[in-house]
C-alpha cells in the first residue's frame, strides 16, 4: 500500500512538473506582459524598465530555472499586476474555492446517491423514469446556462439568496455560496445518480444479495449494508476524479456569481497576462488533480477488500 502510494506520489510530481513547465513556456511566449500591464500607450523605455524590474529581460531558460527554484522553496514570486506575493494571494483565495467546491461536492453526493438508490430500487416505475429524465437534463445543461437562470430566478426574482458575491463573515459566506454550489453540483449529482442507479441495479442482482435476503436480513440492511457499499466503489473513484472538475467548474461559476476564489483569480491573471499568478494557479490546480486521484485510489482500496494496492 505504502509503496503504491509513494509510486503514485512520484508519478504525480512528474505530471505536475510537466504541466507547469509546459504552461511556463506557453505563458512566456504568447504575449508581452509589459504591454498587458502598462498598455499599448506606454513608451518603449517604460516597457523595458518594467521588464527589467521583474526580470523579463533575462533569457527564458534563466527565468525557468528561477521559477523551478521558487516552486521548490514555495516562493512563487510576486504578482505582476498587484505586486502581491503569489503564494499569499493563492492562500487567500484557495479556502474560498475549497468552501464552494466542498459545498458543491456535498450536494452532489447527497442528491446523486439518494436519487440513484431510489431510482434503482424502483426500477422501471414512473419514479425511475422521471428521476432519470431529470438526471439527463442535469447532465445536459452547463453551468454557464443554469447559473444565470438560477441567479435570475432564485436570487433576483424570488429573493431567496444573495445575488452573487462572497459576503462578510463565515455564515454569510456559506449563505452566499449556496446557489453557486448548487449550480456547480447539478452535473455531478446527475452523473452520480445515473452511475449509482446502474451500479445498484447490477449489485442488487448479485448472488450475495440473494443470499443476504435468504438469511432473512432486514431489507434496509440488505440495501445499505451490502448493496450500497458495493455499488459505491466506482462512485468513490468518480469523486476523486471530479475534484479537478469542480475546480474547473469553479472558474465559470465563480465568474457568474462573483465568487472571489481560484477560478476568478485564474481568469483575472490570464486576462492581465500576470505570468507569476498564472503559474501559481496552474501549479495548485495540477497538485489538486493529483491529490484527488491519489485519495480516490486510497479510498477504493479501503472500501474494497479485493483491491490491495501494491500487492502482487
Amino acid at each position, binding site marked *: 500500500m505504502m509503496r503504491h502510494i509513494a509510486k503514485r506520489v512520484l508519478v504525480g510530481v512528474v505530471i505536475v512538473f510537466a504541466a507547469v513547465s509546459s504552461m511556463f513556456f506557453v505563458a512566456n511566449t504568447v504575449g508581452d506582459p509589459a504591454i498587458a500591464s502598462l*498598455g*499599448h*500607450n506606454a513608451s518603449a523605455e517604460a516597457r523595458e524598465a518594467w521588464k527589467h524590474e521583474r526580470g523579463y529581460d533575462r533569457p527564458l531558460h534563466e527565468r525557468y530555472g528561477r521559477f523551478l527554484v521558487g516552486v521548490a522553496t514555495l516562493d512563487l514570486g510576486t*504578482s505582476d*499586476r*498587484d*505586486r*502581491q506575493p503569489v503564494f499569499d494571494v493563492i492562500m*487567500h483565495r484557495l479556502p474560498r474555492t475549497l468552501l464552494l467546491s466542498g459545498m458543491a461536492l456535498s450536494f452532489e453526493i447527497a442528491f446523486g446517491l439518494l436519487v440513484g438508490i431510489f431510482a434503482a430500487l424502483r426500477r422501471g416505475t414512473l419514479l425511475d*423514469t*422521471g428521476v*432519470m*429524465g*431529470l*438526471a*439527463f*437534463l442535469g447532465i*445536459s445543461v452547463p453551468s454557464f446556462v443554469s447559473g444565470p437562470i438560477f*441567479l*435570475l*430566478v432564485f*436570487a*433576483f*426574482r*424570488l*429573493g431567496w439568496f*444573495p*445575488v*452573487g*458575491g*462572497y459576503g*462578510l463573515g463565515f455564515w454569510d459566506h456559506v449563505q452566499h455560496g449556496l446557489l453557486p454550489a448548487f449550480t456547480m453540483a447539478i452535473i455531478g449529482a446527475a452523473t452520480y445518480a445515473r452511475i449509482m442507479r446502474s451500479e445498484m441495479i447490477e449489485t442488487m442482482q448479485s448472488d450475495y444479495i440473494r443470499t443476504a435476503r435468504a438469511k432473512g436480513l432486514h431489507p434496509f440492511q440488505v440495501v445499505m449494508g451490502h448493496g450500497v457499499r458495493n455499488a459505491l466503489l466506482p462512485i468513490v473513484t468518480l469523486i476523486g476524479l471530479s475534484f479537478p472538475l469542480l475546480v474547473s467548474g469553479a472558474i465559470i461559476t465563480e465568474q457568474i456569481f*462573483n465568487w*472571489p476564489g481560484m477560478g*476568478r*483569480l485564474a481568469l*483575472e491573471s490570464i486576462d492581465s497576462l500576470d505570468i507569476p499568478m498564472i503559474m501559481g494557479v496552474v501549479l495548485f490546480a495540477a497538485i489538486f488533480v493529483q491529490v484527488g486521484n491519489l485519495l480516490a485510489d486510497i479510498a477504493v482500496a479501503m472500501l474494497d477488500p479485493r483491491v490491495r494496492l501494491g500487492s502482487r
Partner: protein
Amino acid sequence: MRSTRRSEAWAGLVALVFLAASALALALFLPEEPTTPRWRGAGHEEPQRGGTFVFHHEDNVRGFDPHTSFDELSNMGIKLLFEGLIDYDRETLELVPRLAEALPTQSEDGKTFTFRLRRGVRFHDSPIFPGGRGREVTAEDVRWSLEHMLHPDTASPGITFFMLIEGLEAFRAGDASHVSGIRVRDRYTIEIRLTRPDQTFLNAMAMTFAYPVAREAYDEYGDEVRRNPVGTGAYVLESWEPGVEVIFRRNDDFFIEGQPYVDRMVFTLDLKRDAAVMRFRNGDLDHTHRQSIADYIALRNLPAWEPYRVEEPNTDLWGVVMNTQLAPFDDVHVRRAVAFAINRPHWRRARVNRLLLTGQPIPATLPGYDPDLPEQQRYDLTRAREEMRLAGHPDGLPEPVEVWLGTGDISRFYGELIQSDLAAIGIRVELKQVAFPVFLAETGKPRTAQMLFSGWSMDFPDASNFLDILFHSGSIRDTDSTNRAFYSNPEVDRILDAARIERDRATRVAMYRDASRIIAEDAPWAFVCSNLQMEVWQPYVRNYRPHAVWSNFYRDIWLDLPRERWDADEPRLRGVAAFARFFGGLGR
C-alpha cells in the same frame, strides 16, 4: 439492449417535458422583478452612526496615491482617505475650506495665495509614525507634498495644473532644491506665488494632486505607497484585495467632530453592470451609478425608486471635431453645414434619451453656459444646405470625408450616425476606427485627422477647463494637441487670456460667454451632447446626493438602520402580465 434504449428514450422525453413544464411554470408563476426597493430605513431623522455601506465599480482600482492616481476609481477611494486644503461645495461648485481654516487670501497683484491650516489635524495612525500615532499636519507637510508631486521623478499627471508656480522650472530642472514660489511662513501658514495672476489656480489646489500626504509613508513604502495610503481623511484603509474589494474603516480621529457616520465602507471591484444592478435591487449593494440600457429603463420607470434616484448631466462635452487646417473644413461654411446637419434629437432617441443635447462649447453644468445663446448650433437641414451652397458645394462634396473613431461599439455607432446625417447634405463619410492610444496620438498631430468624434470631461469645474484646452491656439502643438480642431482665432485667445486673470466672477463668466458665442459660430466642432448619468441609492442611505464635481462621493452619508423589508406585502404581477408591463415600459 432494446430495453435500455427504450428507457433512455423515455428519460429523454421526460427531460424535454420537464424543460417545457419549467419554462411554462416560469412564464406563468414567476414573480416579476421587484418594483420597490427590497429594504427601507428605520425612519430616523437625525444622522445615525454605524453600519456598512457597500458600493462598486466595474473595473479594478490601481492605487490610492493622490499625486499619481487620477482616475474615477482611485478618486472614489482617495476622497475617503485624504482631505485637501480646500474643496468644492457639494451643491454649488463654490470652493470651501477643508484642512485650511478659511479660503486663502489673495495678494493685491493677484499672484500670491496664503493658506492658513487648521490646528490639530492628524494623519491616520500608522506604523510609519513613532508609537504608531499619526502626527499633526503642518505647513511643512503641504510644502513637501506639493514639491513631491511637482518633482519630475514622481511623473504626476497633475503637473500641468501647477505650471504657473514661481520657481517651478528651476526646481524641475534640478537647479533648485525647493520651489521658490512655495513658502512656509510659520507652522500653520503657507504661501504660494505665481508668475502671473490666474484665477483658475485655486481649482488646481482643490484637486487631489495638491492633497497633503505623509512624507514618512513615501520614505517607507516608495512606489508601493499607493497601496499604503496615509492621509487625513474620514476613512482609513483596512484591507485591499485586488480585483475583489477594498474595505475602509472609520477614522475615529477625523478632524470634524462626530463624522464620519458609517463604520465601514466596502468598495466592491470588478463587478459588471448587469450583476451590479441585480445586486443593488436585491439590497446587496447600497448605490449604483452605471446601468445597461435595459436596467436604466427599468429603474427609471419604477415610481418607488423615484425619491432615491437622480439623473444629471456629466460635466463633459461630445461632438464632431473638424480639422480647420484641412480641406474641406478650412471653410467655415462647410463646418457650419455639418453643425446644422447633425440630427441631435435623433442621436438622443438612439441613446434612449441618455444624452443632454447642446450646441455650444460650455457644458450646461458650468457657469458660462448660455441656454439662450443666439448662435447655438442646432439641427436645421435647410440652413445646413444653405451653408453648403455658400461654400460652393450645393450638391455636396466630390470626395468622401474620413472620420476617426476610437474602438468600441458605441464609437462605431456614433460614426454611423454621423455618416447618416451628413449624407443628407451630400457629404460621404468613411469611418476609420483605430485603437484608442492611436486615436489620441494621431488626432493630436496637425494636418492628420480630417474629422473625428471626440469628447472632453472636466478636470475642474470652470469654463476655462474646456475653452482653453479645446479651443485656445496655445493648445496646438506638434504632438499631443488637445485642440484637435487646430482652431485658432486671435479674438478668442484674447478673451480667454483676459478671463484667466479677471478677479470679478460675473465679468469672467460674461467673457466666457462671449468666447463661447464666437466658437459656436466658427464651428470648429459640431457640438452634440453631454452624457446623462443616473445614480440610484437605497432608501436607508441618507444624506447622499451626487457631488457637483466628484463622482460617487460617499464621505458624508449615514445609514438609517436597522433596515426592514419593504416588499414583503407588495402585490407583484406574475408571468405574462409582467412581460407585457416590461415591454409597455420601453415606450415611456
